């Protein structure tokens, strides 16, 4: 037997104590970490967005300004009501032409080449364009070049030159773009979907064609410009490393004498088309089919806006945790990209689901999407799911205010799109009031029984006919520079 001597015992005791201490320390250290993340990060962000300076010029131009000197840059945007929805049907593409050529065509005193050079030499940019509802004209530069670039920006907006040569180049590039639409299954599918739900030729579906391109002239662009570009109801946003005094001085100098225009009235065209639900197939040599499923939807400012917002987040706008993602991608492995929901518009919106899936399983994807949409009409979402979407939405709201530019831009866009005053301030509160019943009501009321289904890819229409006949009549369609959809039923 090996008997320990007292010295050895002391040493062993010491080792034991140290070991125990280390174990305790280690346990203490471990115990600092929660066993799970359930209770972490659930506090709502505590924030109050910084305010934006704003004032209105006598001509009606509203100015929003926010200082930010983190980097020595300055940027601005002018938003002007008017856009492609207000074009003449023979001049589809006119808004796009005007937007492009306001900047591309130089000014009445500065040639396009010289303007390009002046901006490129100092790393500045000016861009102009029209969307469906409003025009967006932007600039950016180093703070030290603010006066110079802002003066050019004002010149582009107030005195565009619409240079003849640049306009002819735009026409050539646009004509080429029309030809290349056929290279993209997404482009062809979305053009067909728009025609089907809004009607061919509707301001909400039409796209520029070779014939309307021919009709667009410099004089038409100047007319469109005169009709829409002016100070009243327009909003100018300026942010960056430039002082308020300097901004005020320059805005006054460049825009206070801008005469009020007699703007064409901004009245959104009505949607009168009655869609024909069914399946529309474009057979093209793409190994992956693009699938669009949907129907027309609500206007932007509907009473059920907040429940619809929550519905969207749950159904298919919420990213990886949405029902669509979970069912079509994670559970069935059918698609890499799948998303969808309601997209409200000015006079009518739409409900649309997008998926891209290999052609062999495209029909399974269609069935899965329709099944999931129909399920929302008969099964109310659980309170837990709705709570999750509400919390996600309200905690996420802080990101709308992540920079001075984001705050000012958001304020301008909400006003352009006629959101009610106080929308920002009451958003979280309103979202938190949404109930599962209201979300279910959105699904029941807004989701239709029948869908327009568009398929583009290397798909055998006969197979579609056999497998998807329960989804309505199956039509083949063609695509030249735009969809050619038969109006007859097969």
């Amino acid at each position, binding site marked *: 037997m090996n008997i320990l001597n007292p010295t050895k015992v002391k040493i062993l005791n010491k080792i034991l104590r140290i070991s125990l201490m280390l174990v305790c320390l280690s346990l203490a250290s471990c115990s*600092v970490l*929660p066993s*799970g*993340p359930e209770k*972490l*990060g*659930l*506090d*709502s*962000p*505590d*924030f109050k967005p910084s305010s934006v300076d704003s004032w209105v010029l006598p001509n009606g131009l509203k100015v929003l300004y926010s200082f930010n000197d*983190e*980097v*020595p*840059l300055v940027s601005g945007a002018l938003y002007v009501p008017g856009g492609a929805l207000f074009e003449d049907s023979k001049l589809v593409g006119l808004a796009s032409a005007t937007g492009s050529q306001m900047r591309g065509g130089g000014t009445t005193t500065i040639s396009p*080449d010289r303007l*390009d*050079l002046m*901006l*490129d*030499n*100092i*790393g500045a940019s000016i861009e102009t364009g029209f969307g469906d509802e409003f025009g967006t004209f932007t600039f*950016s530069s180093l703070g030290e070049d603010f006066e110079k670039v802002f003066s050019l920006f004002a010149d582009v907006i107030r005195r565009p030159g619409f240079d003849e040569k640049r306009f002819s*180049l735009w026409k*050539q590039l646009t004509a*080429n773009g029309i030809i*290349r639409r*056929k*290279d993209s299954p997404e482009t062809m599918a979305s053009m067909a979907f728009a025609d089907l739900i809004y009607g061919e030729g509707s301001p909400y579906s039409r796209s520029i064609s070779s014939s309307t391109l021919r009709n667009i002239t410099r004089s038409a662009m100047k007319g469109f410009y005169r009709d829409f570009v002016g100070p009243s109801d327009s909003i100018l946003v300026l942010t960056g490393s430039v002082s308020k005094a300097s901004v005020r001085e320059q805005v006054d100098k460049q825009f206070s004498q801008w005469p009020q225009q007699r703007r064409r009235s901004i009245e959104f065209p009505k949607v009168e088309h009655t869609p024909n639900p069914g399946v529309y197939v474009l057979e*093209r*040599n793409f*190994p*992956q089919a693009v699938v669009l499923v949907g129907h027309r939807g609500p206007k932007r400012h509907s009473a059920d806006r907040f429940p619809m917002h929550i519905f969207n987040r749950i159904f298919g706008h*919420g*990213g*990886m*945790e949405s029902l669509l*993602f979970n069912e079509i991608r*994670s*559970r069935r*492995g*059918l*698609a*890499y*990209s799948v998303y969808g929901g309601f997209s409200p518009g000015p006079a009518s919106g739409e409900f649309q689901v997008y998926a891209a*899936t*290999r052609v062999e399983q495209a029909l399974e994807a269609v069935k899965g999407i329709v099944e999931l949409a129909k399920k929302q009409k008969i099964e109310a979402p659980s309170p837990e799911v709705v709570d*999750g979407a509400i*919390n*996600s939405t*309200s*905690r*996420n709201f*802080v*990101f709308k205010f*992540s*920079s001075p*530019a984001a705050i000012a831009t958001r304020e301008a866009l909400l006003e352009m799109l006629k959101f009610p005053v106080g929308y920002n301030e009451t958003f979280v509160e309103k979202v938190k009031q949404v109930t599962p019943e209201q979300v279910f009501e959105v699904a029941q009321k807004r989701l239709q029984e029948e869908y327009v289904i568009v398929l583009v890819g290397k798909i055998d229409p006969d197979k579609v006919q056999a497998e998807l006949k329960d989804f309505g009549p199956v039509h083949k369609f063609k695509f030249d520079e735009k969809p050619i959809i038969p109006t007859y039923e097969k």
Partner: protein
Amino acid sequence: MKCFVLPHILTTVLFLSFYFLPAAAQSPSLENKKTISDLASEEFSALRSKVKKFKLSNGLRVLFYQRDFAPIFTGQIWVKLGGVDEVPGQTGLAHFLEHMAFKGSDTIGTKSYRKEKPLLNKLEGLMNFEVDPSDESAGKKLLKKIEDVQGELEGIWKPNDFSKRYKLRGATGLNAATSKDYTVYMVNLPSSAFDFWLWMESDRLLNPVFRQFYKEREVIQEERRSRVDNNPSGKLYEALLATAYWTHPNRLPIIGWPSDMANLSAVDMRKFYKKYYRADNMVIVLVGDLRGQDVEGKLERYFGRMESAEGPRPKLRIKEEPQVGERVSVVYDEANPQLFMAWHKPAWPNPDDSKFAVLHSVLADGRSSIFHKELVQEKRIALGAYSTEAPGERYPSLFVVGATPAQGVTNETLRDEIQKILNRLGDDLVSESDVAAAKRRVRVGLLGALDSNNGIARMLGKAEVLWDDWEMVFESYDQILATTPEDLRDLVRKYLSPDVRTYTHLETKKSN
């Protein structure tokens, strides 16, 4: 989740190809360098002084930048693992692994890992069990067994639990990306969710479970179809790399070859994970408002639990031999024509690397750039033309010109006109003022990337993971400022000759 990083060629953002470039080690001279560095230091001194870098006890590096405009932060985890680390037969594995990192851990994504684990093992065995293809009955039995196990697992899994928990906390931009050179995981959260982020991210690194493996393998194959098979530019780009490189893994597609992707296994993935997801091969970047938080202490407590790495980090030994003669390939497709031209170029620390950023700006940045002015506006033979660098930055890469001919113009005509421009730049000097303007555009591009948590985090993280030093961004900037018209002329002469060009073009061919 999960995009894989498109090469610069598809982003066409010029400064991206510049600002992550590494530092010069050889040129300019020390005396000259000091002067130039002072310029860059002055411009970015505020930024540089706010970056805190420290190492955890296991060697994991951290970059922290306090930025307090709003109570939010960006958290990114960078891993020095990309497509370039793969071998033929397993292409796409890094990107697939990035997808699987969203599937949870032994606590996230499952109702009971104790019940799940044996089923996962069983499924793995069944999926790799080979049956005689002629034995139909055995095949059916196997399929039935697989479906049964899948069914049981679906009852245990909590799909997308990882992302649901993030979204509940108000996360935005929850995503990841895989490039040739690295993998990055990213998310933006309210500051109040910092502890949550620490818990979730350290958990997925410490206890990953690759569940839903085979369904996700289908998903990445769909991703390939979207990015390559359905996309004319994607097909052409894949052909470009396979033509320009003969031996280096830069020739392999990040997304993977179809037959490789269909056979990737969980066993291979676990080995790959163990090899590359080691503390000294990763960088954490935090940018945002984390006032009042013990950032360093918390990171140590959560991420310090990862084992310290043993032995040297993995190293690639394959080198591409110098190209001799032009290489040409053609892709036939129903789409309209387009082309790529490419030349091999060096990577850092070769001092020529940064000069390419200035060349890009001169050639293709802005409406007054040479390509736009001559090819699009004056001769009207191109719908667009740009230059960029691809496919990566860790190893010698390619200077790439991409262009789309106007209707009625052949790829060959456009190619020759582009080469003429390059030849001219090899003969004549670009003016001092044009070079100065190009540098200014690069500067504005760099500043523009610094106005968001995400932008700053990406800039710092990429430089640190690739070059082990985030300050290389500014070293590179110094080099750019030092570039002269003579440098550009010499650069073109040295690298952009048609004799060592790769020309890959898409020609329209109608199918039957």
